[in-house]
Structure formats: structure tokens, C-alpha cells
């Protein structure tokens, strides 16, 4: 997507906007799904995000990447969706343990039913824990933990101050710790290699 095409879309050329939709649709869906945990909601979020982007395209001046701008809009739409969902059904996030991805399973040489069961238990607890988060906490945590966004970016996407974004992530971690703490035991603190970043 080059600047000329973005400019065409800004002038109202539907074909240029179509290219934007087709280029960024999947990435926005991925973001929306990770934030909301629900495919149908994620689809609605993506549509809403593109509608908003289309309405406000003239305000995009190219200083940010188009993808970053779209992600910001989609994150905001996802937060709105989480808020709407919380008002309707606070228990919505429950997810089938069977649906959890292979990444939840520890690396083993062969199937270990006990470990798999424990892994599934943790995955289910994560989902339960996510339902305890407020929309802001869930949105901020998803952006931080799943998307690797900085506090600054989270703040911009969700309309918070940077400190507010940090607090939202921290509160989310605290709540998840309460839900998962009994399942996750530190495995030999002294043996761990301490690093500054995410392991």
C-alpha cells in the first residue's frame, strides 16, 4: 500500500479502499480476536473499524503507518465491543478447553495425559481469569501480552494516559494471578536465568 493509493482512498476511491481492506483485514481480525476471544465479535469489530477508518480517512496524514493507525482504531472498537458485551453477558468469555491451542501444552516427547490435563486446567483457568477483567484491563493486557505493544501504544489506542495503561495491565496481572496462582508454581527460582525482558 503506497502513499498514492492511500491518497486515492482519501479522495473516496472505493477500489483503493478495497485494497486497504484486503491488505489489512486479516491482521485486524487477529488483533480483534485476541482482544475479544470470540470470532463473531472479532468480525464485527473489524467491520466497525473499517467503517470508522473510512469515515475518518481524511484525518490520516501519513505520519503514522496506515497499519498502525488501523490497529489503533480496531483496538478501540474492540474495547467498545468488550464494554458492550460486559453489559450484556459478563460470562461470555468462557471457552472450551478442547479448543485451546497446541501452544498450551508443554513440550514433551510423547503424550502425557496428566500433563495435558494440567495444561488444559491452566488454559481453562486463564479463560476464567480473563472474564474477571474489566474491558479496559482485558484490552490493555491483550495488547501488552499478546500483541507486544508498549504502554505508550496501548495508551494511545485505548485513550488512556500512559500510567493508566500500565495500571490496567498490572491490575489484569494481579487478577490473573489470583485465578491461576494455585496452578502455577515457580520452578526453582534460583535456577532461573533472570532477564530484563519478557522470557
Amino acid at each position, binding site marked *: 500500500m503506497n502513499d498514492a493509493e492511500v491518497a486515492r482512498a482519501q479522495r473516496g476511491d472505493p477500489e483503493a479502499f478495497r485494497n486497504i481492506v*484486503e491488505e489489512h483485514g486479516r491482521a485486524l481480525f487477529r488483533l480483534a480476536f485476541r482482544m475479544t476471544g470470540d470470532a463473531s465479535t472479532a468480525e464485527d469489530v473489524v*467491520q466497525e473499524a473499517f467503517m470508522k477508518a473510512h*469515515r475518518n480517512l481524511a484525518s490520516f496524514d501519513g505520519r503514522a503507518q496506515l497499519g498502525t493507525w488501523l490497529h489503533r482504531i480496531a483496538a478501540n472498537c474492540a474495547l467498545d465491543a468488550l464494554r458492550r458485551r460486559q453489559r450484556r453477558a459478563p460470562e461470555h468469555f468462557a471457552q472450551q478447553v478442547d479448543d485451546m491451542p497446541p501452544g498450551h501444552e508443554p513440550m514433551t516427547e510423547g503424550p502425557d495425559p496428566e500433563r495435558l490435563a494440567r495444561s488444559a486446567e491452566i488454559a481453562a483457568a486463564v479463560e476464567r481469569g480473563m472474564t474477571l477483567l474489566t474491558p479496559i484491563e482485558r484490552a490493555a493486557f491483550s495488547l501488552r501480552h499478546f500483541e507486544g505493544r508498549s504502554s505508550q501504544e496501548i495508551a494511545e489506542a485505548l485513550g488512556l494516559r500512559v500510567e493508566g495503561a500500565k495500571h490496567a495491565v498490572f491490575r489484569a496481572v494481579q487478577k490473573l494471578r489470583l485465578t491461576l496462582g494455585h496452578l502455577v508454581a515457580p520452578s526453582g527460582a534460583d535456577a532461573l536465568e533472570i532477564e530484563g525482558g519478557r522470557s
Partner: protein
Amino acid sequence: MSERNSTPLPSDAELVEHFYGESERPQEIERALEASAELRTRYAALRELLGRIVPPEVPDPGPEYGEELWRRLEPALAQQRVRARSALAWRVAGGLAAVLVLLAGAFVLGRSSGQKDERAAIVAQGLSQESRDRLLLAAALDHLDQAEVFLVGLKNDDVRAAGGGFTLARSRAAELVVSNRLLRGSLHEASGGAGENTPGGSRAGLSVVLEDLEPLLLEIAHAPDGLAQADLDMLRARLRERGTLIRLRAVQDRIQRENSPAPRPQRAGAQA
């Protein structure tokens, strides 16, 4: 050593920031971790916890996702453009928009009865040529927007999906035929009977598109209620082959570009 002892132990919030690589004092925290087994245990627990929380597996929306998404979005975006352009037209033309109705009425009356509506004529006399041109282009944009929404619906087969058989599409097409003729006539009059050679670059191609639209709209307006799928497919094929929608959008784009002020630059990433 005394420096280490004087440094306060990092809080849980700081450990979380440290984990995500956003600590404001990373070296101090690392030194504190080296010095305190209790802190190492806390940090290890945090890493274990957060390490267990992996992103949910995102379902594959399928290879056609972008196309499907566009198919769902296109009609809504077209409607959005209609609303936006209508708002723009009202802003640009302001109170003069009401005058357009009178002018249009005068045109219709003049054509149907051979008489000019006196009120419209009086108002029209009071308008400058520039104002008349702007009103005409605002009306043209509005008509093209409406036609675009209709054609997108036809292209996507929404005319049937909307229910009511073909009746709704037929009556909509009939309305569009009327406004199409009205515009063609107004363009003809504005050019002093010079046909397509209307003054002003932004009107280039407008007459051609309107001429192209009319037989298609007429055909739909006069189609039987039980229009066969094959006939509808033929209409769509013609729409595609002639590139009517593309040319219509190109004219919209050109009118919009040549008659709108440049968008005001704003700061990057302004929230939608």
C-alpha cells in the same frame, strides 16, 4: 553493598513492567534480584504465570476473507459516502440547496407542461452562474451516490436478498431514471444545448455516465416481477462489462476532487 541495601525492593507493579521490558530502572531491579532470593522467587512466579498465558489460537477466517469482508463492507461504505457527501453538499451549498429543489421543479414542470414555474424562475434569476454550477454538481454527486448504492446492491445480488422479490429494486430504478433524466436535461441546459461539452473540467464524463446509466435503469424499472436469475445475471454481466460502476466512481471522484477544498492536515493517528 550499602547502596544495594538503601535501594527499595521493586514493587509487584515494577516487576511486571520489568518483565515486559518497560522498567524505568532495569539495572537496579536486576541488582535487587541478584541480591534477594525472596525477590527472585516472586519474579520467578510472575514469569511462570505470564509464560503460561499464551495468545489464544486465532481461527483462520479463510483465504477469501478479504474479499468477503469487502463484499459486506461495500454497500455500507457506499451509504456512508452518500451521507458524507450529502453533508458536504449542504455545507457547501448551505441554504441554496432549497433553491435546487425549486430549480428542479421548474425543470420538471417546464418539461411536462411547457410552462416555467414562476417562483423557481425568479429564484434562478437571482443566482450567479457559479452558484448554479455548484448546485448542479451537488445534485449530480447526490444522484451518482444513490445510483452507486443501487448498482452495488445489484452487483452483490442484494436486490433479491432484501426480500420483496424484484419490486423494490424496480421502483428504486424508476426513481433513479427520473432524477437521471432531470440531471441530463439540466446539464444540457447549463451547456446551452452543447450536449456533452459542458463547461468545467469536473463535469467531463458526467453526461456520458448518465447516458450509460439510463438504459440499464430503465431495463430494471420495466423488468417483470418474476425476473429469472439468468436475466439478473445478464444485467450484472453487462454492468461489469461496461464498467459502469467503475466509470461512475471515477466521475464522482473527479467532481469531488475538483470541487472540494483540500483536506485539512491533522495530527497523525487522530482517533476515529
